[in-house]
């Protein structure tokens, strides 16, 4: 446990320091969402109808933006060698790294959502619904993205490859995330059904992600 908490604390600390990845994601999210009303125009009804989708797209792209560095930085400076050799199973180390990434880069997106909801003419209930679905869904984005990050480590130009590999995996999360938000705002579906599937997607990725990422890291040893 000391080993894992040390890894989580280190990654969060690096992300929060100058040049770390935590702020980049939030700033990107902010940019996408702030620009959207200017692009769509002053149609308030349209904005509030598109709001959940815009917030979800912004969060998805923002979390992909920083994910490719998840293992790359450790690979480049040799830390990954030591992590692979250590007494901590690689699967757990991967899970710890993904958790740290989510805490540093995913959670701030959710915190920023209520503020950005104002710009998209979303009321309190709608903003709350979107924030809740993001809270349930962004772990799935991080943990499936981790698989791509693991594969990208050994390939040059891995960043581009990662987007291609990970995007199909994140589509179900996007669909059910937006569906659950829409259900809470306009109906007619119940909120529970898509939200449960969203939670299930997150839980499955929590289990599958670390094993798949560790397997791809081991396979890519060189």
């Amino acid at each position, binding site marked *: 446990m000391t080993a894992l908490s040390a890894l989580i604390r280190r990654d969060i600390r*690096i992300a929060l320091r100058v040049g770390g990845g935590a702020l980049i994601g939030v700033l990107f999210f902010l940019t996408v969402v702030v620009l959207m009303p200017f692009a769509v125009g002053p149609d308030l009804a349209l904005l509030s109808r598109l709001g959940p989708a815009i917030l979800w797209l912004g969060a998805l792209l923002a979390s992909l933006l920083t994910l490719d560095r998840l293992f790359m930085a450790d690979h480049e400076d040799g830390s990954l060698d030591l992590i692979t050799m250590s007494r901590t199973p690689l699967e757990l180390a991967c899970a710890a790294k993904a958790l740290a990434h989510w805490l540093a880069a995913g959670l701030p997106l959710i915190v920023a959502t209520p503020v950005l909801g104002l710009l998209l003419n979303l009321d309190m209930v709608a903003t709350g619904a979107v924030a809740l679905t993001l809270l349930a869904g962004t772990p799935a984005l991080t943990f499936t993205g981790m698989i791509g990050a693991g594969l990208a480590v050994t390939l040059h130009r891995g960043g581009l490859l990662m987007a291609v590999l990970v995007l199909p995996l994140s589509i179900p999360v996007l669909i059910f995330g937006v569906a659950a938000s829409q259900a809470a705002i306009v109906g007619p579906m119940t909120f529970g059904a898509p939200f449960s599937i969203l939670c299930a997607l997150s839980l499955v990725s929590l289990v599958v992600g670390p094993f798949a990422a560790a397997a791809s890291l081991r396979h890519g040893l060189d």
Partner: protein
Amino acid sequence: MSGLDQAKMQLSGRGVACVRGGREVFSGLDFAAVSGEAVAVTGRNGSGKTSLLRLIAGLLIPAGGTIALDGGDAELTLPEQCHYLGHRDALKPALSVEENLAFWADFLGGERGDAAASLTAVGLDHATHLPAAFLSAGQRRRLSLARLLTIRRRIWLLDEPTTALDVAGQDMFGGLMRDHLARGGLIIAATHAPLGIDSRELRIGGTA
């Protein structure tokens, strides 16, 4: 030093073969090292010195042959009992000297010594709060050496360990290696330059 298992230990490889990128680097390599002994792996560039260390560290899969450790900790795998000091120093520029060292001590676990004492031993005690980004190449190497001292592992796998160290640093490192061997440690070092301690030579790839 307290706690280090003084039992006799032998690291041996039999018929080890290494293939990188479809090209055979070496094959049929036999080697053995016992505790208290340093082995200097030599050979021309590209002969597979680093590959051999990475094979022992479990970071490469041998294409043939076996590598085994007798007399080590039966509960741990060979890589888990090794320290690997590679070309890349596993330091995070955003973290301070102290934080870098403390992280590896916490993460690698096992028996650990005093981090502050190790930093003093490698001559970095004046820079503990400095971010690693501001360290020179030699200082980064010294910080990596502090990791070997802080967390106790019996087997040291060193890849060109004296690179970037000044003359005083090489003397200091020679002393650290002698201490490690005296405690029953085992060192396998890939090197071009003399190690600065008594060592047995393992030559890879003929006499080129």
